[in-house]
């Protein structure tokens, strides 16, 4: 099959060789180590703790949830005592209220765990409830609650369920390993999703730099007529939701709209495995695969960790940093979009896909020079924006012009900064102004809503 792709984008060196052929290894938290469960690991309302300090929790116990529709519960991934509830640093750089559990090392499981069910006998509502009840969110990075994604508004019929296996971020190999090692679970998870949307076609999109994954997945879906594997051109950001949809279906998700508006649901490989585990194995989301890579780590590889472990515990468990060439920069996720960390004392969360340990050479930050208007940022921006212009707006503090030039449509993929020969911090400046302007927009919308409500109320009182 011919490989498909989207317009523009960049080709950073992929760096995947470091960890691609390392099989997934299980890393269990050490006895007496502390695990942190931040109350917000997803898009939507934060959870509230269901346990108190001093409580004993077991593996698989729901320890926090929220009554809001757009939210996702959180589960203990070890057994032990709740020793504290306090703010903890998460990879995004913020402090989030977290339940601290001291691991007693017994891995005692709560009753009722491992009650796998046959999805073919379940109703759609039961499946959605089970997915919500298992705390499954998008594990590719955004953390959008999966049960909400799988239940789009009725006026958006779903034609495609796309499995995002592009893994376009350099260095990351966790999705690749899952495809090579557990293809049948991915297919099973996708079949569960397809049961919810029987008219949809399942497409697994994989970049061409993973021929083995393409081969194995193609074999795994042989004989299943509503699932195909689609090779994709190796290009960043191929795994961006909008660009994956564009490549495979030739549909464009409109500015500000969700994929469902284009008849598509997109989920990451690990998310699909999480769905399969939730339904068929009866296990909530407690683990994930993390790629630890970079020249500064002794044993780069792919590790199945218990969510809640600190990254320090993870690094210690796998042999630590290289002594002769220690990392100077830590990145949570891939090098194009992952935030850098100033410490390893960070809780791993549902969306932690990677930890990169960059040495001095890898972490080199070039000096920013004058924009020479070469237009390479414009040529490569996957959203068709003019990053150099948005950068100028950002530096001038001209938020109005920033919005007028579609700054809010930026997906922050960093392709512009990657290409820029003047090494300007394009994505960084755009991201900063985007936050401010998006906040203003939300505030204006809220004010307009409040005004409309007040008017409606006044009108009602008048009558």
């Amino acid at each position: 099959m011919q490989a498909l792709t989207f317009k523009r984008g960049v080709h950073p060196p992929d760096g995947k060789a470091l960890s691609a052929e390392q099989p997934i290894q299980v890393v269990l938290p050490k006895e007496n180590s502390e695990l942190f469960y931040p109350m917000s690991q997803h898009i939507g309302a934060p959870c509230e703790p269901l346990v108190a300090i001093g409580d004993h929790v077991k593996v698989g116990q729901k320890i926090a949830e929220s009554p809001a529709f757009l939210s996702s519960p959180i589960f203990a991934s070890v057994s032990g005592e709740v020793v504290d509830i306090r703010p903890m640093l998460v990879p995004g750089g913020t402090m989030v209220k977290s339940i601290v559990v001291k691991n007693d090392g017994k891995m005692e499981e709560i009753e009722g765990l491992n009650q796998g069910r046959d999805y073919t006998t379940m109703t759609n509502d039961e499946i959605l409830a089970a997915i919500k009840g298992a705390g499954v969110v998008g594990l590719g990075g955004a953390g959008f609650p999966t049960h909400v994604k799988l239940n789009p508004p009725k006026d958006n019929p779903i034609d495609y369920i796309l499995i995002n296996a592009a893994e376009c971020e350099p260095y990351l190999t966790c999705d690749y390993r899952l495809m090579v090692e557990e293809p049948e679970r991915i297919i099973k998870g996708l079949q569960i999703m397809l049961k919810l949307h029987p008219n949809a076609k399942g497409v697994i999109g994989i970049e061409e730099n993973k021929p083995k994954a393409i081969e194995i997945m193609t074999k795994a879906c042989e004989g299943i007529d509503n699932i195909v594997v689609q090779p994709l051109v190796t290009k960043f950001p191929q795994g961006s939701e909008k660009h994956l949809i564009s490549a495979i279906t030739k549909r464009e998700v409109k500015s500000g709209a969700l994929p469902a508006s284009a008849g598509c649901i997109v989920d990451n490989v690990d998310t699909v495995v999480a769905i399969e585990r939730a339904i068929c194995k009866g296990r909530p989301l407690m683990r994930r695969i993390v790629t630890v890579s970079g020249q500064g780590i002794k044993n780069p590889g792919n590790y199945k960790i218990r969510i809640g472990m600190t990254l320090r515990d993870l690094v210690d468990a796998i042999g630590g940093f290289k002594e002769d060439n220690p990392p100077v920069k830590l990145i949570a996720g891939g090098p194009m979009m992952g935030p850098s960390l100033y410490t390893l004392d960070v809780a791993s969360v549902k969306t932690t896909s990677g930890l990169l340990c960059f040495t001095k050479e890898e972490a080199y930050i070039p000096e920013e020079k004058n924009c020479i208007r070469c237009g390479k940022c414009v040529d490569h921006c996957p959203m068709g924006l003019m990053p150099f212009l948005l950068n100028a707006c950002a530096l001038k503090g001209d938020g109005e012009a920033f919005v007028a030039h579609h700054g809010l449509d930026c997906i922050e993929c960093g392709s512009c900064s990657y290409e820029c020969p003047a090494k300007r911090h394009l994505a960084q400046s755009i991201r900063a102004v985007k936050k401010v302007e998006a906040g203003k927009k939300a505030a204006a919308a809220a004010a307009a809503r409040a005004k409309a409500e007040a008017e409606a109320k006044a009108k009602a009182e008048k009558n």
Partner: protein
Amino acid sequence: MANFVVSGTPHVRSKESIQSIMRDVIIALVPASVMGIYFFGVRALMIIVAAVASAVFFEWLYQKIMKKPVTINDLSAVVTGLLLAMNLPVATPIWVPIVGSAFAIIIAKQLFGGLGQNFINPALAGRAFLVASYPTEMTSWTSAGNFGADAVAVATPLAQLKGGVIPDASFTDVLVGNIGGCIGETCAVALIIGGIYLIAKHVISWKVPVIYIATVFVLTAAIGRNGLRVPTYELFTGGLMLGAFFMATDYASSPVTAKGQVIFALGCGLITTLIRIFGGYPEGVSYSILIMNLCVPLIERFTEPTIFGALPKVKEAKKA
């Protein structure tokens, strides 16, 4: 291991830099420079050296006086000086390239904010200043290969066309550059090789040079001048190749948008033809590019790319 570096994304950057781009432009100009020196003699080399050295010097001087970081190692001043030398006749006095470089670097480039901020091409601005101020020194053409005591004043092929006669140079001479003209503009083959190198290295897009040259070809073939329709001479003599590949593609003074580049190149081609046929000068490349430079902000305003997701496009995929 206490202090980790924290920075905004992305954490990987391409290897390309301003310096590497400028180096590629210099490499691309090497064939034309060598041919210029071959045909016009060692004096051509002296003019090139004077222009380049003074351009670098004036950039350094300005930045020192203004207490700004010195950026001469980005090689952009070298490119400006080299391009200016390419645009000078070999018989010009040695102070001419120095004055031209001063104007190009200080007035056209640095006073507007330095690299990337100049709204017109600095080398062409320098040349235009020289042509306006010292017309005699700037238009004393000598035949190729004859510089020295027996230098012969010749008319350039374009001047002959202007006068209504078919140029006496053979087409082979025109291609290799064995004709009268500026140091770097006569060897069309060398310039095309340099241009192809820049396109292959993704330094410039093919759009501007190809559309510019094609426009001149079509218009001169259609209109002709003095009843002569010899578009091949129009293309390969004069400054068209140099202008199309190296001047009109200047980043700072040409549009960044793909559509804008098309309009810009069409405009350059049109104005070049109009000046050649209806204007007072035999050649119109420099002025056409300078005029189009001034239109760039306007062109860009109307050619902003359509963003992803701007229009509802729901088409059924052919294959998925």
